[in-house]
């Protein structure tokens, strides 16, 4: 083979290799990013900018604090994920379980009344009255009652209004009602603390645990087994209610103030927890108050008069609070506390 022919073959071979290399590079080069990407930990995921933004806004992975000119706690947080937890608890647990609690308590009271009836006096009323509550004590009691039920009713409307009132008033009507209730609830809230302090100072001295209280509890206050159980001015049941009202009221007041005065620097988590606690304690105290109302009115004969006129029949005192009755009788010197007509015994006692 001549040199000229060999030279042409080498040239053709170079061209062929060049074309082949070009072809290989053309096919392989676009694959390099994929090859490199497979080494990345996030390889395989398709990023959606909107999804990532929403994830950051809701802070599912981590806290994201933005920048704002607003000067307040959590001002840089667009959406707090904890709010969803709180909302879920409120709608899925607090609302149905709270309604169930109140319904069960009312059902038990109704059942008890139908089966047992009101607790009658052990003996016929004597007609002689004995002072049980002074004017001041009754004023403090009814003042607390007024504030408590104003708050309870407005609070229950705020909690259950959307289920009960929207079908009746419509969405707009409920909106107005809810706004009115919220303003009234917030404005009256701090006054409940005033009532609570007055209630505590007025009645605490007679609501300390005393001998005989445990026995009273074990015998169910005579309501279950029948028969008389000895008690002082307040029996163990009344003392328990007093402390539920005081401690529960204190929790309600503190959590309520945290919720109303959001300018004090508390975080949303603290406010969420306060709301949860506020709702649970309120529903418990309201439920227990049903029992208190029953026993103070239809449940025990002759009891209501003690908080309206301030006087009870001696037979009532002996029947339900015999130790207190004995103390009063022992303390009286000129029978100024035992009178036939309530109005005559009020001189100098208000």
């Amino acid at each position, binding site marked *: 083979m001549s040199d000229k022919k060999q030279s042409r073959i080498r040239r053709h071979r170079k061209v062929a290799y060049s074309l082949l290399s070009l072809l290989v590079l053309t096919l392989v080069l676009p694959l390099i990013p994929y090859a490199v990407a497979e080494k990345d930990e996030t390889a395989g995921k398709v990023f959606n900018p909107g999804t990532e933004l929403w994830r950051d806004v809701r802070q599912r992975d981590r806290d994201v604090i933005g920048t704002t000119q607003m000067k307040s706690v959590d001002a840089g947080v667009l959406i707090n994920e904890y709010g969803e937890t709180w909302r879920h608890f409120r709608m899925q647990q607090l609302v149905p379980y709270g309604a169930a609690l109140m319904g069960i308590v009312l059902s038990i009271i109704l059942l008890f009344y139908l089966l047992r009836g009101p607790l009658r006096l052990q003996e016929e009323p004597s007609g002689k009255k004995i002072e049980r509550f002074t*004017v001041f004590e009754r004023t403090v009691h009814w003042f607390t009652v007024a504030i408590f039920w104003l708050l309870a009713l407005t609070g229950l409307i705020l909690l259950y209004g959307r289920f009960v009132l929207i079908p009746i008033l419509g969405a707009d009507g409920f909106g107005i009602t809810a706004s*009115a209730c919220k303003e009234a609830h917030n404005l009256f809230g701090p*006054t409940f603390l005033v009532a609570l302090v007055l209630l505590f100072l007025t009645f605490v001295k007679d609501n300390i645990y005393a001998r005989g209280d445990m026995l009273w509890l074990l015998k169910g206050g005579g309501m279950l087994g029948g028969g008389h159980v000895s008690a002082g001015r307040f029996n163990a049941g009344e003392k328990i209610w007093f402390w539920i009202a005081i401690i529960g009221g204190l929790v309600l007041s503190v959590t309520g103030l945290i919720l109303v005065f959001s300018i004090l620097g508390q975080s949303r988590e603290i406010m969420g927890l306060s709301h949860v606690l506020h709702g649970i304690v309120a529903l418990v105290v309201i439920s227990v108050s049903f029992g208190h109302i029953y026993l103070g009115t239809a449940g025990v004969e002759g009891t209501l008069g003690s908080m309206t006129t301030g006087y009870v029949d001696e037979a009532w005192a002996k029947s339900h609070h015999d130790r207190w009755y004995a103390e009063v009788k022992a303390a009286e010197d000129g029978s100024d506390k035992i009178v036939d007509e*309530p*109005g005559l015994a009020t001189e100098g006692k*208000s």
Partner: protein
Amino acid sequence: MFKHLVDGIFWDIALWVFTIGVLWRILSIFLVGNKKDLSVARTTGMTGAIAANISRFFPRSEMQSRTRLHVIAGYMFHLGLFALLFFAAPHILFVESQTGLSWPAMPYWAFIVTAQLAFVGLLLLWIHRVMDPVTRLISSADDHVGSILTFIVMLTGCMALLEGFEGLRVLHRFTVELLMVYFPFSRLMHAFMFIPSRAFTGAWFGRRGVKA
């Protein structure tokens, strides 16, 4: 419809009844006149009138323990209501819209505290009125209606605090109109008459040298 009535004709009627009623009550009392006092005056009546007006602001020392609740709750309610009526921003704006007159309002926090004091005072006073057999006996339906109506006016006022719903403002204004119509024919007139009443008693006794 109801809103137009409340903001229109109802308001006009209430304002006229209130104004004419109050003037009629005051004039009718002053025009009755007094019998001529033939006794020799020990002091001028003016001294007694001023003294009685001032001394009535303080409880008598021997009555302090018995009247503590009345005095504290009374001041809480009356001062609170006075401040709410004349220094709450929405009320000043309303007066300005009607008359063009305006004056500085109290801050929002003071408004809230004042409202709470007034509510506590009113509730305590009314409950005590009902609980105490003596005050219950000397109270008439008029006293209870006046107390309850005032409470409702204050309650609807606080419910409209957000100023977000027109219906709540209308409701508040309607209850105010009811109170204005009731006012001249009730013991609520003491708001206007307590100073001349004290002055009359003080002057009457003062002329006789008796400390009223």
